[in-house]
């Protein structure tokens, strides 16, 4: 019988304690924010959308190899000895035309593993997190700066050059051989040695968040 009365008393009392807690919280300011109107500042290390600064890319394929979900696709073409592709901001000499640099951001798992091996620090994660699209193929970002017309001509030029070189070699060997068709891709990761340390502008941490407008056809 005592237990019966004790149970009733404890129940009522614990209900009242709970009600006091919730009533106190009625007057505590909310911790939530109104998201689209108010946005929190993301910390410096925020890992969101990938961005590639193509001016610095040397086509070394390190990021493609590091990606655990294979969301980066890179295709490169060797440049001609006569062509000068310039120097990256970290002082690496660019030797390859990057004819394809696609990131399927829908596959990306935001692990950041592609960021660390990059020798020129040209691939990094930005603080942009609002990039939903209505079609899945719109999420395949194409970072190549070359236009659609340029890519075939570069490929042709290099193929012709390699054909010529092959023909020359063949001629030099004085053993006429049919010229081997050179492959348009050079899959081997050709990492050029860093040349003179002409460290021009240090890369700023503020990231241009311009979404790549070109989309994969």
């Amino acid at each position: 019988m005592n237990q019966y009365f004790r149970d009733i008393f404890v129940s009522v009392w614990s209900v009242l304690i709970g009600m006091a807690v919730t009533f106190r919280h009625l007057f505590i300011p909310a911790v939530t924010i109104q998201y689209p109107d108010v946005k929190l500042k993301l910390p410096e290390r925020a890992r969101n959308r990938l961005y590639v600064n193509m001016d610095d890319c040397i086509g070394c394929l390190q990021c493609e190899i590091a990606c655990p979900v294979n969301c980066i696709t890179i295709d490169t073409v060797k440049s001609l000895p006569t062509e000068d592709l310039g120097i990256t901001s970290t002082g690496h000499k660019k030797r390859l035309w990057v004819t394809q640099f696609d990131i399927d951001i829908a596959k990306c798992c935001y692990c950041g593993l592609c960021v660390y091996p990059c020798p020129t620090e040209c691939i990094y994660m930005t603080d942009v997190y609002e990039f939903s699209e209505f079609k899945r193929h719109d999420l395949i970002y194409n970072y190549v700066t070359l236009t659609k017309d340029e890519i075939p001509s570069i490929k042709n030029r290099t193929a012709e050059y390699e054909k010529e070189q092959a023909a020359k070699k063949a001629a030099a060997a004085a053993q006429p051989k049919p010229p081997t068709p050179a492959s348009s891709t050079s899959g081997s990761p050709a990492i050029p040695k860093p040349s003179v340390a002409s460290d021009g502008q240090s890369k700023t941490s503020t990231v241009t968040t311009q979404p790549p407008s070109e989309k994969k056809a």
Partner: protein
Amino acid sequence: MEQVLRDIFDNHFFIYTIMAIIPLLWVLPYALFAVWLERKVSAHMQDRLGPMRVGGWHGWAQTLADILKLIQKEDIVPKAADQKLHFLAPFVVFIGSYAAFATIPFSSAYIGSNINIGLFYIIAVSSIVVVGILMAGWSSNNKWSLFGAMRAAAQIVSYEIPTALALLVVIMMTGTLNLQEINQIQTGWFWNWLLFQKFPFVFIAFIIYFVASLAETNRTPFDIPEAESELVAGYHTEYSGMKFALFFLAEYANMFAVSAIGATLFLGGWNSPFGNFLSGPVWGVFWFLSKGMFFVFVQMWLRWTLPRLRVDQLMYVSWKVLTPWAFACIVGVGLWMMI
């Protein structure tokens, strides 16, 4: 009010229609407001903001937008459902909860029907709700819905006993079943309210009534018929669109009905707490509605504080706690009145 209408109009049918529609004019906006209030109260108790966008100030139009959305929704009826019962159930539930408003005095000048057995009528008519819930659960042809309906039936039927017993205390003290007369007995300052008389028996009876009414309206901690973490939605799982909205409306109408009955019987209904200060038919409406809304708020407060009871514990509370204590109150009040 009825007399005024009789002076203007001749047609009895017309008069009764007007009289019947007046509570609806309160219940519909009230339901919109209460749903919004529930969301705001819950949000602020949980350190959130709740709806803030629709309509400008603190999202006041959120429920309007929700209703518009529900109206546009497709009315989905399961193929294996009992079509007729499935269609009828939400209406029966709403009629059950709305019919209780007929004898609730909103003011000294307005009561839907000033009948002598008002309280008895309310207890009787509010039981219709359980028929509608059973119809909904059975006709949905869904095991989870049936669970919800069976739980609801068991719960509402057993909680009607402590409710009726607690109300019996009031009837013993006032000697009438007419709610308007019960109100008139409590006129004057707030110590004339029944709640503060024959302490503590009436006070305990009021607590019993309030707890039991929570169970009758299926509110937490007695919301097992629609327990969302067990039965997902209970008896209205298979309802969509406006039929679902009707269940919702009925729940909120029921919440106000039980609060209003509690306010009328124990807290003086439309009486001002301060004697003649701010009293009169119009202020009466104000006092009545504020008292009702206060208990609606307490119901919300409890809902966002407490966990849910289990079925057997619910029955334990009804039969072994509330019912004996209600009997004790009756005996106490009876002895007090004899002495």
